[in-house]
């Protein structure tokens, strides 16, 4: 016999609160479709997909981490490290495969560092990854002797590498495809793998997970390494796109990724981070920027809209959180 006593609200009201983020996205899409003729063209949609790609990748990584009950402020660090390694390899005459693979793998270093701080030194994820962030900033400056970008001469750059960042396939850019791939990866991990379920359980009630035999240390390490590797991939993509390494460009995505993941939590019926929700969140930010661009609205207003969207969507979900509170364990 169910003991649940939800406040009496109509089904529609309940559903609309839950899908607030999707409704928001649709509203934005509709608005821009009507305000700009160019918006809903295949070309523009493809541009949106490309613009969204890096944010989506970082957001996917962030979804993993927040679902495990933590947070990763060093996503920018892994991002930049990936770019740095990839570009440096090409700059020094290496081939494309090495650049890409080693760039991606460089994320492992950051992930291991975070894992060590969090699991063995028992530092809270916020402060641990903050520390990594600080250290990463220094390391980048030191390695580049002050923070100068590294530019690749077009003649020296293998075209394969360039196409990694700028190529097209079936109407979508390669980065867009890669972002979808990584998104799908995170989706599968969280929703279809036992590992994902264990991590989710740990994120909700760490004690219950521990007592139920879920291995805490190994799982946490995996999550942080995964996150950093995924972000490093995004860095490599940016590097290929710009054919340059620009230090500290990864931090740009941090706050948006956090915002997107939390917007995404409104989609889940239990308020947990959800990959689909994060996708919606990332899309909301990207579409907003794109649409406002098309309408000629200066980029000054982007922060305004972004911030308001976060506040409004989360504010609306507060009422739902109250009724869900009996599912939360302090």
């Amino acid at each position, binding site marked *: 016999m169910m003991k649940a006593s939800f406040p009496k609200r109509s089904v529609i009201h309940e559903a609309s609160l839950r899908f607030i983020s999707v409704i928001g996205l649709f509203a934005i899409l509709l608005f821009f479709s009507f305000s700009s003729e160019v918006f809903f063209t295949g070309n523009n949609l493809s541009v949106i997909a490309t613009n969204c790609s890096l944010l989506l990748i970082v957001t996917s990584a962030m979804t993993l981490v927040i679902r495990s009950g933590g*947070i990763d402020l060093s996503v920018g660090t892994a991002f930049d490290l990936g770019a740095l390694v990839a570009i440096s390899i090409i700059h020094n005459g290496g081939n494309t495969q090495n650049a890409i693979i080693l760039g991606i793998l460089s994320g492992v270093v950051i992930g291991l560092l975070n894992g060590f701080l969090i699991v063995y030194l028992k530092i809270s994820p916020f402060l641990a990854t903050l520390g990594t962030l600080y250290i990463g900033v220094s390391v980048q400056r030191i390695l580049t002797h002050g923070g100068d970008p590294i530019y690749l001469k077009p003649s020296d750059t293998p075209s394969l590498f360039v196409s990694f960042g700028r190529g097209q396939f079936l109407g979508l850019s390669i980065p867009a495809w890669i972002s979808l791939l990584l998104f799908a990866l995170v989706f599968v991990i969280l929703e279809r793998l036992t590992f994902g379920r264990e991590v989710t359980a740990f994120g909700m009630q760490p004690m219950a997970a521990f007592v139920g035999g879920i291995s805490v240390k190994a799982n946490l390490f995996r999550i942080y390494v995964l996150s950093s590797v995924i972000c490093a991939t995004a860095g490599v993509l940016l590097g290929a796109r710009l054919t340059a390494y620009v230090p500290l460009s990864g931090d740009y995505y941090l706050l948006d990724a956090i915002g997107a993941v939390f917007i995404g939590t409104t989609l889940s019926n239990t308020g947990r981070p959800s990959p689909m929700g994060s996708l919606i969140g990332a899309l909301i930010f990207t579409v907003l920027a794109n649409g406002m661009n098309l309408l000629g609205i200066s980029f000054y207003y982007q922060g305004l809209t972004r911030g308001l969207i976060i506040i409004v969507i989360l504010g609306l979900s507060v009422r739902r959180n109250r009724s869900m509170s009996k599912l939360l364990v302090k």
Partner: protein
Amino acid sequence: MSIKNRVALMTKSSQNKESIKLVRLAPYFGTLMFGGILILFSFTSPYFLTFGNLSNILLQSSIVGVASLGMVYVIIVGGDDVIQGGIDLSCAAFIGLTATVTAFFLSRGHSLVISVTLGILITVFGGICNGIGVVYGIRPLLMTLGMGAVVTSADLIFSNNRQILIENKFFEWLRDATYYGLGIAVYIYLFTFLILFSLFHGTSIGIRAYAVGGNSTAALISGIKTKKYIFNSYVVSAVCASISGILILARLSSSTPRAGDIILLDVILASFMSVIFSRRFMPNLAGVFVSAIFIATLSNAFTLLNFPSYWTSGIKGVIILVIVATRSKRSWVK
């Protein structure tokens, strides 16, 4: 499972006794470390201990310091679990906004008083919004994140993404004047600290603030209006950030868009570092005051040593990690 709580409390107190050796040193740990580093640096350069240099350090620390005083209050009241607890990520944006708005009105010929008042008021308004959102139930991390984005926008709109130069006697005075060798900014920092400190520790406000942050249910039961405290903390933080904004405007004689961005990390660092100066390992005002100075000392020492400034950030990161790791072993996994 109330008895379980009590048992857990029992085991916790015995664990605390194990780390008693470390804890006994605790209140001195921070000061020891600080003093030790000062001595170390004084050996490295003959200029280090000159009055001029020390005064410079204090001046450098004032902008970050004032903002950190506000930030630490938010953290005390909100609880120091960052994902759920109190934090004000819009601090940086507030600093920039105050500077911009003030400069904006000054450059349009309005009086000093009006310009400064508007600059501060608009930021306070932002703080009020933060307070409302958090009390309503939006997690501080996200509320202030969103607010920060909104305020940064406002900053850009006002300034049109350009520097606004100002020429004003008051601000020149603020920038250049010294009394007894110390710049005005230092006095403002000191003054703000003393006001907050005496309000906090001289009345029941401090104890209640710690109570709200430590166990808000117990605080509520004891009759403390927790929502009021939480709301107020965001307003205080905004006010402190606005003062920082005025100081930075004076320092640069102009407002720069997004001036506050670099400052945010230092503010967070100073706030969390403050725990090492507290017997209870809790964030605290006096600790923040000293931490901000410490951070400025680091940068200063590096400059004197001709150390490339790239190392500063990394050292800060290591410091934060070391501090947190040596806190009494309480796993964040509950």
